[in-house]
């Protein structure tokens, strides 16, 4: 068993031997034509949004974005309005842009540390119940988050108490977290852990055994092996998970919407965008620019680090 690290290659794949003939050439270009037809179909919606975000308000509302090709008039006006905070209901995207970072960074960095410990224990330590504990952790990958929302909400509002013999013991105090960014990233840490442990475990378990045995013979104990050997070797897996989790948290709507009050100043961009879409369904110029601001960061991350993203995806869903 090993983690799959196959990434899409750039080679043309298997092509038949060059038999020649015009018909063969024609047939050979059919896949290319169909593929690029699909690509255009897949890209047009996003392209439309991008083009529209650079058109002025009346143009967006009265003509299709494709008319820009015959009558090119572009402006940054929509972006200016989207970032404005002049009135109380202005989109104020800059604030929500920062909020998205304030939620995504802790929710990405903290679970990595916690999951790395656990993944190492599952991969290289011997203890009773290791197998079933790991299986239980992986099983949690499939648990719908909807199962956790109401109890977590109650936890953040009231804390967790346990009454015995008329005496109420506080297991977790009421930290007054409801409506705060902290509640959102704490929740993401919990939800992200099963995948993090699964991915890192797969990677760590595939590291060559002799390396560990050599270290053992040299007298290294588990903490030393973990810090000196496993963490440096696992950087690709850590990066893959980090990208995965960052995109996941940045794009999340459900958790943020649940634990922050609607219209909250702490809301990430997805929540703000959804509110804009609901209340100003007809303000297409604001909506297009706001949407593009919110998808710009994940798209940049995606195109810059696609290799790692794909690796994480493959390791998370396929093995061996």
């Amino acid at each position, binding site marked *: *068993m090993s983690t799959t690290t196959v990434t899409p290659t*750039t080679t043309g794949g298997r092509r038949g031997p060059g038999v020649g003939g015009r018909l063969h050439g024609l047939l050979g270009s059919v896949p290319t034509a169909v593929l690029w037809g699909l690509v255009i179909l897949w*890209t047009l919606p*996003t392209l439309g949004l991008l083009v529209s975000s650079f058109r002025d308000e009346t143009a967006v509302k009265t003509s299709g974005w494709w008319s820009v090709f015959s009558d090119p008039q572009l402006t940054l006006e929509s972006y200016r309005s989207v970032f404005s905070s002049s009135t109380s209901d202005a989109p104020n995207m800059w604030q929500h842009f920062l909020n998205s970072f304030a939620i995504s960074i802790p929710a990405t960095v*903290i679970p990595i540390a916690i999951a790395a*410990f656990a993944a190492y224990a599952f991969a290289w330590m011997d203890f009773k119940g290791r197998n079933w504990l790991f299986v239980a952790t992986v099983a949690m990958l499939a648990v719908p988050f909807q199962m956790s929302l109401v109890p977590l909400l109650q936890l953040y509002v009231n804390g967790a108490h346990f009454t015995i013999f008329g005496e109420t013991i506080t297991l977790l105090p009421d930290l007054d977290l409801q409506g705060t960014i902290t509640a959102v990233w704490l929740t993401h840490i919990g939800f992200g852990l099963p995948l993090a442990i699964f991915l890192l475990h797969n990677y760590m378990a595939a590291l060559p055994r002799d390396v560990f045995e050599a270290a053992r013979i040299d007298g290294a104990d588990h903490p030393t092996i973990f810090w000196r050997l496993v963490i440096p070797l696992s950087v690709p897996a850590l990066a893959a998970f980090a990208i995965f989790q960052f995109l996941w948290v940045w794009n999340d709507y459900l958790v943020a919407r649940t634990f922050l009050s609607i219209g909250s100043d702490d809301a990430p961009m997805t929540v703000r965008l959804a509110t804009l879409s609901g209340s100003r369904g007809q303000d297409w110029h604001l909506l297009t620019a706001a949407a593009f601001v919110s998808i710009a960061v994940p798209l940049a991350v995606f195109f810059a680090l696609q290799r790692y993203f794909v690796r994480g995806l*493959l390791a998370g869903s396929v093995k061996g």
Partner: protein
Amino acid sequence: MGELVDTLITVVLVIAVVLAGFVGINLLVDQAPKRWRVFTTGMGALLGLLAGVIANSGGWFKGGALWPVGGAVVGALLGASVWARRPPAPDRIWRIPDRTRPVIFLAPALFFLFVALVAPTIRTVYLSFRDKRSENSAGLDNYDWMFGNRSVFSVDGWRDIVTSRLFLLALVVAAVTALVAFGWSRARRTDVDVTGPGPTMGFMLAGLLVVLAALGALSGVVWNNVFWLLLVTGLATILGLAVAVLADRARGESIAKSLIFMPMAISFVGASVIWRFVYAFTPAEKDQIGLLNAGWVAGGGEPQDWIRQVPWNDLFLIAIMIWIQTGFAMVVLSAAIKGVPGELLEAARVDGASEVQSFWRVTLPHIRTTIGVVVTTLMITVLKVFDIVQVMTGGEHDTDVIANRMFSEVFVNRDNGRGAALAVLLFIVVLPIMVLNVRRLQSEERA
């Protein structure tokens, strides 16, 4: 800006505390074989601190930091004197670090998993048997409501499936497929083969038509989820496979794949806004600003308000999810296709198999497990769909799904019981997939 800086400082602090605690307790455990008294003192202080914290939360013992600090001091003293006096046998002491290490490595993760997933899951099941505000027992009322409420689940209209034109069309397609397969085998003097590419596609098309017929006839939250599940899982997998195969033989493979994969990076909310713009509707006398209506009008149709057209509006929401998930299926399946050994394909070619045959008889069987993984992953994702429905329609116009209805029961109607019951329904549907995943994991472990 200030808030972001605050958060970053918090993150650094949290990480520092986690790492310091981790390193510290590892060091403490290391002391057991060397300096027994240091170990017992440290452990005593730790246990005392914990006991103090818990005691402090009770009604009788309120005293701020007094209890935890006092507990730590008392624990340390006890550890240094009483427990240190009689150490266990040396060979048992030597094993202490190895025995406790897994606990130290696993404790933080298990704590978070317990608080965020395990305990809430149990509690949600419990809440589903309680009333609106979780105060009194409600018996099975919430489940009665779920299967008795027509907007959630009903089988009214199932007769319309059988009489619909789509269903008849499906029957015709299936019959024609069967006849052609039969005729083909007679012409070639071989056995009737219904597993070949042609018949399979014919029957799949018939199946799709039946699903569409059902979509036209049945309504309710549960059925909508079923349609999402079948259509997204089926079509995204087939499209993803098609793109993976095409890209394998086409020029510009990597760029094409990147562009089709791109929607995976876009949030469901962002994707919904993108598609709302595609589906935008303006009255007939004006220019259409939505791509779909512009194309429709250019083709001679009347402009349509696509996302309000019951029952077919579901399809337009489902299309968004297919747009997003096809890239996922493509990437995973493409990697699997490239993993098919070249010798196998070469052997098939030498035996005179056509491209289609070698794909159908060699590649497909070889990537069967991967297809299974893609399908189950998609199913889990689709079952939980919430954002798209919330942004596109808010669940109006007969497009509601379980996850969105659960959200509105809890946060709009303030009914925790019904919300919890819907969540439990979702959980029960996911359970078989979960068992399947675990089985697969275990068989891989053994291999």
